[in-house]
């Protein structure tokens, strides 16, 4: 297999999981693969292999791709034999798409089936890894998971040596929680709104792209005991900015989206 650069596309939310009408983020991910009919495997582990999620994946990807999925809860039912050898199947993919849900449950189940090691190998071989929410958090060294009780840092697979926070715009308290976690010692990292994807080549952020005109992403780190947040340039994947100049403005003006947010951004915890 020719060696390709490792690539991860970490979605703050969005893609086929939650964006019924748009295909911008999924199309962006597929554009990185460079195959006419890419082999795409879905890992719905974080949802408990929810049937409806698997169905939606096939609806979205089977028309243009060789689509498959791996269920870690139904291995006794042997779906088509492809799960007999997880490693062989996963390492023959062009894209591994990880669904959203609970990141702790997913990482636990992955470890129990040896998927953590397989995915690390897949990444090194240049198989594109992507996913929203838990499917984003899992690739990082640390992540802020808010699944039950108070949000807390969890350890991810550590392919990307940063922390990650998703759905950054979805809940008002999320930003303060992430800043607090970084202030309390979580490594610095990246936060993404719903609809925003962070595209890493190797371990470097190459692009931030968005399916929404006003999608934002940020780099957050602790500097001399203070937490600093910096807006990242986010490219809107929709209509070209020249066609609709009005839609471009918010994408570049994240910090000023609302007074409340702008004010908050200057706050160092």
């Amino acid at each position, binding site marked *: 297999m020719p060696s390709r650069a490792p690539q991860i596309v970490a979605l703050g939310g969005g893609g086929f999981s939650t964006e019924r009408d748009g295909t911008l983020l999924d199309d962006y991910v597929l554009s990185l693969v460079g195959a006419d009919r890419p082999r795409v495997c879905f890992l719905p582990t*974080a*949802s*408990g*292999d*929810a049937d409806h999620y698997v169905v939606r994946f096939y609806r979205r990807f089977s028309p243009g791709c060789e689509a498959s999925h791996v269920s*870690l*809860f139904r*291995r*006794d039912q*042997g779906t088509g034999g492809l*799960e*007999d050898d997880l490693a062989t199947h996963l390492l023959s993919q062009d894209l591994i798409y990880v669904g959203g*849900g*609970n990141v*702790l*449950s997913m*990482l*636990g*189940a992955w*470890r*129990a*089936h040896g998927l953590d090691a397989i995915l690390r190998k897949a990444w090194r071989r240049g198989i594109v890894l992507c996913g929203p929410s838990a499917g984003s958090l899992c690739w990082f060294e640390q992540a802020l998971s*808010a*699944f*039950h*009780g108070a949000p807390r840092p969890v350890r991810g697979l550590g392919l990307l040596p940063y922390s990650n926070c998703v759905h950054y715009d979805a809940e008002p308290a999320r930003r303060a929680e992430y800043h607090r976690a970084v202030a309390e010692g979580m490594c610095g990292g990246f936060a993404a709104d719903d609809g925003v994807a962070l595209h890493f080549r190797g371990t470097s952020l190459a692009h931030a792209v968005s399916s929404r005109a006003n999608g934002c992403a940020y780099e957050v780190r602790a500097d001399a005991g203070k937490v600093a947040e910096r807006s990242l340039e986010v490219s809107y994947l929709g209509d070209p900015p020249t066609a609709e100049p009005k839609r471009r403005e918010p994408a570049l003006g994240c910090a000023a989206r609302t007074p409340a947010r702008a004010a908050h951004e200057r706050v160092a915890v």
Partner: protein
Amino acid sequence: MSRPPAVRIEERLILAMGGGGFTMEPNNPLLDDYVLSLTRRTEPRILFLPTASGDTTAQINAFKARFAHRTCVAEHVSLFRMRESTRSLEEIVFAQDIVYAGGGSMRNLLAIWQAHGLDTLLLDAWKSGIVLAGLSAGAMCWFQAGVTRSSGPPEALAGLGLLEGSLTVHADGEPERLPVWLAGVRSGELPGGWALDDGVGLLFRGKRLDRAVSSRPGAGAQRVDAIAGELVRTRLEPELLLGDGPARALGGLDEAVEELRRVHRLRRGIGRGGN
């Protein structure tokens, strides 16, 4: 949060079912009623853990259908869809009288409980006298080892070890587990233990087997040990549960509680049901 104090070992109860209960016997409530009878509460609080199935809606709905109208307070906890919960797992677990684990993938069950720290919470819950119950993966998990099909073919897998020995389930319904278990016991890879048919439950007080019960005639169980490389099998004769029986046999229950349960059962016309 404050936790209840530890109870004496003989007050620690685990009901391990080879199959059966609400997910497998929608028309036979005997095992589930037996589970409810294991506490001293008039209205026991029962928590369902559907983790081994991936928290399927089908299991959760079956749990609700079985327990929603019984004399208990029933809730479930999802480790995949917990976003709405503001209580910690510790608060949820220690508010219960019974924790009931469902069937599915034993490997995933253990890994996910461990990821959330639920394995140690449940150990502490057992020590504090919260009744633990479960079927299939949710039964084998309490033992030193079980035989799982989590990765396809049946294989031995270590459990939490609250109970000594090994357990294999669905001995009648999924007989392919048996040879793997017997070979493991013979070779010493697995400690001796029990094979349970669907519908059979073993009640442990502390680490001691107290009682074998069943929800249907003909359902059996056996104890198998390796002695000098030979398998020694002992058949158990599970007591067939009757609608009114189990609470009395356990003892220690208020007569009014039994009366109340009897009335509830009569009112719903259950308790005499077979399969």
